[in-house]
């Protein structure tokens, strides 16, 4: 560790990473003084806020890691000796862009090899400096390097016209850039502490020594390992929500009372909805549903009060866990209120008003407390309502039923070994009990957007609804045949929506990375935002109430052949599966994806594959090419959207 490292040790470690040419260029005073940049950086440079290499910002590291700054440690040494293994963030030097641009313009590519002015670092057995600099070794390293892969992931290198191998050998590996899909710099250094200690470029080590010694190119632990390594305990998530809630200022109940006076029905007819967020401010399937429901309620002439936790909350709140609640009144955000103040203000506003048609739809209880909800409903004299199954929050605090966020658990018995090792296990009973209090106190009809969702819930729940119905969010209506693209075009494979692990983004990214540069395929991401660092074309698409068909039209416009809808959790509906089919594209999914798999199996909408290995095989063998639009006659459909609860209130008796 750095705190006890001698200057010699520090020198040895940082000498592999200080970019002398960069240092001399951006700090002419150092060049003029003729001092060794490594010694200068270690002795005073870092204290003066100078950067040792284009990829490392001294001030940036301190800003991200105040403990290192407090400990008065050389930040580059800390990062190389410990920080990178601890997953600490680094930022590029503020001089990097200008420096690289200048070098690129001058077509200066630093020679590969040890700077002769430097003291040699420790050498590993069979890996002397002589061997490292010979043309034969460069050829051996080049054989392990995938230039096409490197350039496809690093457009800055391609644009600068630098030889990709030179770039990797001199800078890229220190910046965490990978030399091929089969080799991981970080994994190699972690698995081989001797290589990390020696500061040798890991790919060079592997090509010249490691391969013969039986060392592996990468750990290949799979994306689920990555998810698990970042898994946050539920207690921490709740504590964070609590802190965020406490930091929020709360409006006075009078503001709520004032807002309620601007009424559609004189407060006679009132629809209350509960969900996990502000559907008017966020984008997503449930939010879109609530926008549709809100419009339907307006058309019915009822007032509409929507309540949600003002900060995202990971579970149903226990009694005593206080949090500020946001409120929308007839679609407008009217403020943030203390949870317990809402019932009182509502009760006062409704006092003396004749009770008309009053209704309730619970879309999510996350962030709500059963006590507060029951008080609010009592104030509004509501005793019955709809309970929507958008997710599995009524079965477990892990609302997606993703055990430890990596695999569908199937909601096994709470005492099972699986629940005992799951981060959500200790919260499950409480979560179900909070739902139970509402099911006991109210007359609730469960509404599922699919047969598959209702069937599964019915098998796993002990909650007793008064009725259960299926009401899909959308249906397909045939529109005609799709135009056929050219036969020889590469297969266009897309991921739709939020790039989240539980939605299957990491499985898709793995495939895209593995087949980057394969002329048979093009990978696309259609969403409001993407996750950089993968060879995937990003196309911004936002589905809103104003443009509900945005995804379908984008799929058609981009001539997407196949969408990988690899949800790791049970989808209760899946707009993206419907949108894919509507646009004439095919769905690839797995058996745990709930209604995605059910939808695919209900028609000829795609394939349900057993696992990620089967998905990769399909691309490797090229069998996936059979799903190209050019090889089948794709049909197009319109999507007919439901009005959710608004559709069901016609039939429901008035409360």
């Amino acid at each position, binding site marked *: 560790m750095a705190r006890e490292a001698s200057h010699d040790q520090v020198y040895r470690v940082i000498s592999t990473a200080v970019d002398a040419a960069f240092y001399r260029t951006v700090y002419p005073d150092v060049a003029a003084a003729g001092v060794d940049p490594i010694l200068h950086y270690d002795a005073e440079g870092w204290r003066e806020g100078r950067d040792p290499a284009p990829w490392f910002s001294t001030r940036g590291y301190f800003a991200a890691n105040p403990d290192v700054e407090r400990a008065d440690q050389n930040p580059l040494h800390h990062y190389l000796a410990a920080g990178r293994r601890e997953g600490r963030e680094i930022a590029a030097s503020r001089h990097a862009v200008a420096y690289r641009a200048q070098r690129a313009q001058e077509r200066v590519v630093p020679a590969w090899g040890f700077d002769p002015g430097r003291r040699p670092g420790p050498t590993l057995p069979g890996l002397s400096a002589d061997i490292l600099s010979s043309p034969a070794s460069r050829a051996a390293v080049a054989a392990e390097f995938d230039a096409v892969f490197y350039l496809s992931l690093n457009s800055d290198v391609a644009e600068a016209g630098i030889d990709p191998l030179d770039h990797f050998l001199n800078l890229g590996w220190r910046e965490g850039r990978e030399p091929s899909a089969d080799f991981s710099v970080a994994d190699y250094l972690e698995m081989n502490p001797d290589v990390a200690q020696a500061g040798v470029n890991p790919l060079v080590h592997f090509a010249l020594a490691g391969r013969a010694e039986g060392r592996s190119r990468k*750990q290949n632990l799979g994306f689920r390992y990555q998810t698990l390594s970042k898994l946050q305990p539920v207690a921490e998530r709740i504590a964070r929500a609590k802190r965020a809630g406490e930091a929020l200022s709360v409006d006075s109940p009078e503001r709520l009372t004032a807002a309620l006076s601007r009424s559609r029905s004189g407060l006679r007819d009132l629809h209350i909805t509960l969900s996990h967020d502000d559907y008017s401010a966020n984008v997503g399937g449930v939010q879109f549903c609530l926008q549709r429901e809100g419009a339907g309620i307006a058309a019915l002439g009822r007032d509409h009060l929507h309540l949600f936790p003002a900060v995202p909350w990971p579970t149903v709140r226990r009694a005593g866990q206080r949090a500020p609640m946001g409120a929308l009144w007839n679609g407008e955000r009217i403020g943030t209120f203390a949870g317990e103040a809402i019932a009182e203000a509502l009760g006062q506003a409704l006092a003396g008003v004749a009770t008309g048609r009053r209704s309730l739809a619970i879309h999510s209880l996350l962030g709500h407390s059963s006590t507060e909800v029951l008080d609010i409903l009592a104030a509004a004299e509501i005793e019955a309502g709809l309970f929507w199954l958008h997710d599995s929050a009524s079965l477990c605090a892990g609302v997606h039923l993703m055990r430890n966020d990596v695999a569908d658990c199937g909601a*096994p018995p709470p005492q*099972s*070994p*699986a*629940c005992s090792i*799951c981060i959500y296990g200790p919260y499950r009973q409480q979560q179900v009990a909070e739902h139970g209090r509402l099911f006991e106190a109210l007359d609730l009809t469960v509404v599922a957007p699919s047969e598959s969702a209702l069937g599964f819930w019915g098998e796993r729940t002990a909650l007793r609804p008064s009725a259960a119905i299926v009401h899909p969010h959308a249906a397909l209506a045939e529109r005609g045949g799709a135009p056929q693209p050219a036969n020889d075009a590469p297969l266009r494979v897309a991921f739709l929506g939020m790039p989240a692990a539980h939605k299957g983004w990491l499985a898709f990214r793995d495939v895209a990375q593995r087949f980057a540069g394969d002329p048979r395929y093009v990978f696309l991401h259609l969403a409001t935002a993407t996750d950089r660092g993968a060879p995937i074309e990003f196309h911004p698409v936002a589905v809103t109430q104003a443009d509900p068909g945005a995804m379908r039209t984008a799929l058609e416009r981009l001539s997407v052949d196949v969408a990988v809808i690899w949800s790791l959790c049970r989808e209760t509906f899946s707009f993206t599966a419907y949108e894919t089919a509507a646009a004439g594209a095919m769905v690839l999914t797995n058996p745990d994806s709930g209604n995605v798999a059910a939808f695919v199996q209900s028609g000829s909408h795609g394939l349900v594959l057993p696992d990620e290995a089967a998905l990769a095989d399909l691309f490797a063998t090229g069998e996936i090419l059979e799903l190209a639009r050019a090889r089948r006659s794709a049909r197009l459909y319109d999507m007919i959207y439901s009005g959710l609860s608004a559709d069901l209130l016609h039939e429901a008796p008035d409360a």
Partner: protein
Amino acid sequence: MKVLCYSSFTFSYLNRARALFTSVRRFHPDWELVALITDTPPEGFVFEPVNEPFDRVVYAQDLGIPDFQGWLFKHDVVEVCTAVKGPFIHQACQSGAEAVIYLDPDTALLSSLDPLVDWLGEHDVLLTPHLIDPNTDRAAILDNDLSASRTGIFNLGFVAVRTHGEGARFARWWNDRLLEFCYDDIPNGLFVDQRWCDHVPALFDKVKVIRDPGYNVASWNLSQRKVAIGKDGAITVNGSPLRFWHFTKLGPTGDTMTKKYAGQNYPVYEIWNWYKRQVTAFTDPAIPERYWAYDAFADGSKIEKAHRVLYRERADLQAAFPDPFSVEGGGYAAWLRAEGLRPA
């Protein structure tokens, strides 16, 4: 069957022992759980056994080991925590229990050990081998098979005995050997208690070698064991229910070996993550990391392994300094300094 289950540790492993005993109590609330501790509580830490997830504490100094201070000094922390397992199991055979089970503090139960109790109806000694399937990959052979050849065929993170017959005879023999030869001295054929147990199938009858993959799962046998978690909530290893895991080397070394052999078998990481959360939850910040009361001479200077080895090899030093920790009149520490051996 009346079962006594014990574990041997120092206060720096109390967090792991708490995780172990909590898991044992969950599945076997009727077992008597005993903490065998070779240590004294650190200053500032209030040890209240009544609030711990075990029924009883036995301190090593109360086992009646002759010349306890001198005997203890001959061992490092791992050696002595292993050595005391022998005297305890021997004495436990006369305690009224019908079976005694030892579990290392860094093990934890994931389901019931009832099948073990059934086996003890027929067998007097149960042992779990490090490996139950040979490796075929060269790196795995180097890491695992050859390691087991050096350190012992059986992993002594677990042993179960009946308190009569061959079980009692084994306990007596183990007691005798461990009191005298429980050192980490692989060149001389010793690896604490483990190499001794290579002899067990030859020396005793009614020994069962457990070849069920659900027992004593650890990084050294993951290369041949695949963990699965079913939608029914069961955790299985090569199809058998997972009984207990040996979380050896909690930290970077354990992580590296686990990753090397678990690969993409992600339930392994789920189980490790759970264990790490348990240990974190059971950690008392009042216990300094790597604390051990017997780590220093009475004047506070640290005892090096070499000081212990020298003492155990020299009968004259043992005679001259029956309590080698003591610095009264200079003691062993002063002798070491006078001889040019530098205490740390």
